[in-house]
């Protein structure tokens, strides 16, 4: 980093870390690019490309100011959106090649694990309960994982699967809850506990239903003709 823009109170050790972190990011990206050049299978290339994307996050994070912290989140979102768009392309291309029938949660490999047949409902219940207890983004991810395990286990055991069409709507409405909580936080700071819980529950519902949506989106993708 150029010395003139660094404030005086930053210790020299931290400001000297920038070059190290920058080189670290570039080395990670270089390793990823070597992997992409050597690999032949498409799905592996896609996964290795994500490694280059992570190197991008390292380079942005190396700056280490609050502005760069604000840049990491959009960078991560863009990275995720790109990898989802490309995997969508990959899925629809493979579908055109094989032209298979529609299936809910299509799996490239057969899941033959004991955990799917012994007590999946209990595990899913524990995960959802723990997710609700955690609340917020982490809780949403845990609860969504519980939903995915439930759906997968039903599929493995050959039971019928319910498809809730309104899952997308739940996600959208809970997003509104999150935003309302956020606005409350600024307008009426004395009700901070209420707005905190609004935001936490909204985010929990949103993330959980988003992860649940993944399966439905995959089915729609396979159903498209």
């Amino acid at each position, binding site marked *: 980093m*150029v010395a003139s823009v660094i404030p005086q109170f930053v210790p020299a050790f931290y400001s000297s870390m920038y070059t190290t972190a920058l080189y670290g990011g570039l080395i990670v990206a270089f390793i990823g690019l070597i992997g992409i050049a050597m690999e032949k299978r498409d799905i592996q290339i896609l996964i290795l490309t*994500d490694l280059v994307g992570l190197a*991008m996050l390292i*380079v942005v994070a190396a700056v280490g100011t609050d502005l*760069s912290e604000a840049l990491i989140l959009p960078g991560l979102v863009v990275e995720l959106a790109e*990898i989802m768009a*490309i995997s969508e*392309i990959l899925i629809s291309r493979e579908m055109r090649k094989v032209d298979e029938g529609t299936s809910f949660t299509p799996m490239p490999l057969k899941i033959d694990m004991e955990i799917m047949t012994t007590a999946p409902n209990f595990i899913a219940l524990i995960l959802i309960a723990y997710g609700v207890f955690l609340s917020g983004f982490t809780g949403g991810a845990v609860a969504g994982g519980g939903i995915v395990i439930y759906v997968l286990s039903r599929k493995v055991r050959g039971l019928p699967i319910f498809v809730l069409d309104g899952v997308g709507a739940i996600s959208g409405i809970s997003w509104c809850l999150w935003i309302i909580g956020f606005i409350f936080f600024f307008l009426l700071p004395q009700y901070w506990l209420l707005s905190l819980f609004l935001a936490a529950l909204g985010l929990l519902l949103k993330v959980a239903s988003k992860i649940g949506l993944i399966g439905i989106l995959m089915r729609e993708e396979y159903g498209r003709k």
Partner: protein
Amino acid sequence: MLIEDLGGNILGTIPLGDIVLYLNPLHLFLFVTILLFTALISISRTETQVEAMFGSLDENKVAVGLKEFKQRRFLAIICGIATAGAMITGDLFNFTLFMALIGIVNIGIVSAVKQVDVLNSAYQYGLIAMMCGLPLFGGAAIILAATGTLSLFELASIPANPMMIFGALVMLVGVAGESGIAPFFASKAEMFRTPGSPFILIIHLSSLFIIVRFVEILLTIL
């Protein structure tokens, strides 16, 4: 270089906290042009490709289904709006985000086609776009590290130093990859071999406008 030398007199600034938008005739012209084109696209219908069949006088019509048409029109409008945003923005990182959004939407426009080879080239273009996310965002971050700001208005008045030039060149590689121009064009050119003309055209037009704007940014900050 001073902003006034490139885009004409500054018509005004819109201070939004850290981000200071500034308006000059060049940006306004690009902004209005791309919005007009987007408006034209939103009311137009797709073409139907007619292929002559070999060995007979028959012809083969390749039309676009209604669902696919709607999806493409939506994504094309998003692409136009993102390009317009990149034209008018006064913040370097906003520009990179609009650029990345255009890259994603370009993949999305061709994602619903039925031809396997078009999907294949879209996949290759997507990989290139994703790898070029590193120089794109990394270059912006290096410029941020060199100057402490991302506002183009302030960057124009800071004299260029070697690190800034390095960051700008890295970012140039990123923009070239994301918009699929010269060295990376091979992956993108095959994407157009599909019916649905006006929506496919915005892929071209957006990268054209982005390059013009980015050259202007480079000249401004260096």
